[in-house]
């Protein structure tokens, strides 16, 4: 029996790896996304324009603007001279933020009275605007602290902020581990579901069914190659993360690869289930797309799972990517231990058993 399964696996790998086009389809996206995503997928705000409508002409506002313009977020300062300018700057997206200093700003500051700067933000991109506003607030707060200390006044309390696992809030550390999960998802599904659909279309699936191979063996013969391919891709991305992007790998490789086995099992279950419902590659492709797109969008990668409505969070429990992305990130960046990992692993196991069982049942049934 083992030799028959081995024949299946060898055949599958030969089919995947010896044709140039299909090899390219497995490898090129990995490198492309590895080169593009870490730079493109960032919510940081850099290189923006700071627009200033300064009705004050004292030194304080000029000092503050100078400090702000040194921040990484702003590479340009745009001087505005009227309300009309201000409206145009925001409307036409010339600047994400306009700071408006009132005419008595410097006088108030020098006289020790509270002074307010108005920040007008483009709500069309509210997240970036909020982030920029955070930067501005930080700089103004630092300026306040400095002035208080300079005048010898006491600073009552102080917030000391530390970011663990990623001291500089570098997006690359968020993206590369997530990529491990996302890219393996896509290829594992393609290898399982599309290859079954192709066998159906080309008639080779019938050849397998009339041979002494059982549906179980055929499923194993589809799952193991998917696992090998996905692990190969994961290894490339992990190595690039550690050696090119210089992200320290904190946890245990054994745990990571061990849980990957369960993850791919869960994916193979979905892949085989999709393929058992589809007659053509076309349908399988739409099926994979309809699974992958929500799986990625709801994985917690673009935005945290806890921001979703509660009912959707429960539904999202069925999404294997949601569990695995936490596992990869936690093991990679935080050295998550085996005991804590179980909390994310058992859902994968449940999903794998459920989908593989359903796929097996469908394979036997669909012969009719």
């Amino acid at each position, binding site marked *: 029996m083992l030799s028959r399964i081995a024949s299946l696996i060898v055949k599958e790998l030969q089919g995947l790896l010896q044709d140039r086009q299909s090899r390219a389809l497995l490898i090129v996206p990995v490198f492309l996304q590895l080169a593009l995503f870490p730079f493109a997928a960032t919510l940081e*705000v850099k290189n923006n324009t700071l627009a200033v409508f300064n009705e004050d002409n004292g030194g304080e506002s000029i000092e503050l603007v100078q400090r702000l313009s040194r921040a990484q977020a702003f590479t340009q300062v745009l001087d505005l001279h009227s309300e009309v300018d201000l409206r145009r700057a925001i409307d036409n997206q010339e600047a994400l933020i306009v700071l408006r200093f009132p005419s008595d700003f410097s006088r108030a500051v020098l006289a020790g009275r509270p002074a307010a*700067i108005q920040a007008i933000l483009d709500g069309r991109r*509210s*997240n970036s605007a909020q982030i920029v506003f955070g930067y501005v607030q930080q700089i103004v707060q630092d300026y306040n602290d400095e002035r208080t200390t300079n005048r010898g006044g006491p600073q009552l309390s102080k917030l000391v902020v530390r970011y663990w696992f990623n001291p500089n809030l570098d997006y690359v550390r968020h993206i590369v581990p997530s990529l491990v999960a996302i890219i393996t998802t896509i290829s594992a599904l393609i290898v399982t579901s599309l290859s079954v659909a192709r066998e159906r279309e080309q008639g080779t699936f019938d050849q397998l069914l009339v041979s002494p191979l059982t549906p179980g063996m055929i499923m194993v013969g589809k799952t193991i190659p998917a696992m090998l391919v996905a692990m190969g891709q994961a290894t490339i991305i992990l190595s690039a993360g550690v050696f090119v992007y210089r992200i320290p790998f904190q946890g245990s490789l054994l745990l990571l690869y061990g849980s990957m086995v369960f993850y791919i099992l869960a994916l193979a279950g979905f892949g085989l289930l999709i393929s058992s419902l589809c007659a053509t590659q076309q349908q399988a492709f*739409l099926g994979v797309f309809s699974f992958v797109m929500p799986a990625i969008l709801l994985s917690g990668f673009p935005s945290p799972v806890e921001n979703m409505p509660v009912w959707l969070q429960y539904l999202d429990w069925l999404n294997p990517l949601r569990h695995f992305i936490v596992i990869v990130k936690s093991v990679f960046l935080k050295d998550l231990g085996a005991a*804590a990992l179980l909390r994310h692993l058992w859902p994968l196991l449940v999903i794998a058993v459920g989908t593989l069982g359903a796929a097996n049942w469908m394979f036997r049934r669909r012969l009719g």
Partner: protein
Amino acid sequence: MSTPVSMRRLYALCRKETWQILRDPSSNIIAFLLPVVMLFIFGYGINLDSTALRLGLVLEDTSPEARRFADNLYGSPYLRVTAGQNRREMEQAMIEGKVRGFVVVPVDFAEQLRRPGGTAPLLVVADGSEPNTANFVQNYVFGAWNGWLKQRAAERGETPPPAISVEPRFWFNPSAESRNYLIPGSITIIMTVIGALLTSLVIAREWERGTMEALLASPVTRAELLLSKLLPYYALGILSLFMCVGVAVVLLRVPFRGSLLVLWVVGSLFLGSGLGLGLLLSTVLRNQFNAAQAALNAAFLPALMLSGFIYEIRSMPEVIQAFTYLIPARYFVTAMQTIFQAGSVWPVLLRSGLFLLAAALFFVGLTALKTRRRLE
């Protein structure tokens, strides 16, 4: 070669295409069901505003002063605070992802507050593995802390030390809800997928079923062939677009401030480029499966990553920024966000419109060039 158009033949071909669309369940699913499902996933699944941030709290100092500060944290609508015994416990909770960060009120907090000239430190530890959330941890704790300072000063009848404050005002979107811009943006992604998927299949399908051969042997001209594929799918796409906008406004309650006429014009231009790209791929590849896969890679991923829909284009390296100028979705995202939230801001819309027109002409033109009247 001049390719005159006979209205009779064009009409006959469009009529045939329309019949096929109406009778093909998969076209209808792609055009009407998929967009709504995707819109709901985007609408509910992607939310960058943390409304229930899980925060840990370690009160090493249990004095009334420390408790007053803690009350401010508990009172924040954005935070869900769980108290822990010690730092170790919270560190572990953060590693396991149970909390996104924690605040430590150190043992000497009250003492430092009392001591003249003393500064009472508070430690905020945030999980940096998700930078956006970490930013929110900092911002929300800062807000609570600031509130606590003001409250404390007011209670003691003290004037707070004079300080410069910054008052935010979000135009177009006063409560700074991310879904108000994410949903219009996501319509772009959806229309990209729909346009590319629908058209990538149609020409390839004619090749695979052998009907293209029969058409090519008839007096049909290249222009007629191309137009007969563009017009019906354009109609389908624009219907689908207006349906998406309807769902966004009525069911997902996103404000819409622009004009439907402008939406139609900009949407048409964008569809022109999207359908053009799909047709191009399916003309060149002639295989439904490869065309669909290529269409997704050439349309979906760039639209998601490089259109400025979620990720800030200006923060990207310049090379990638330059590349985004080539992506039609970029202009449509800008236009959609503006039409929905700001209304008719002509400079923005005109600029986007012009780029979209150029893109549409480019892709349709290239398809026309690649459309052969022969089998090779």
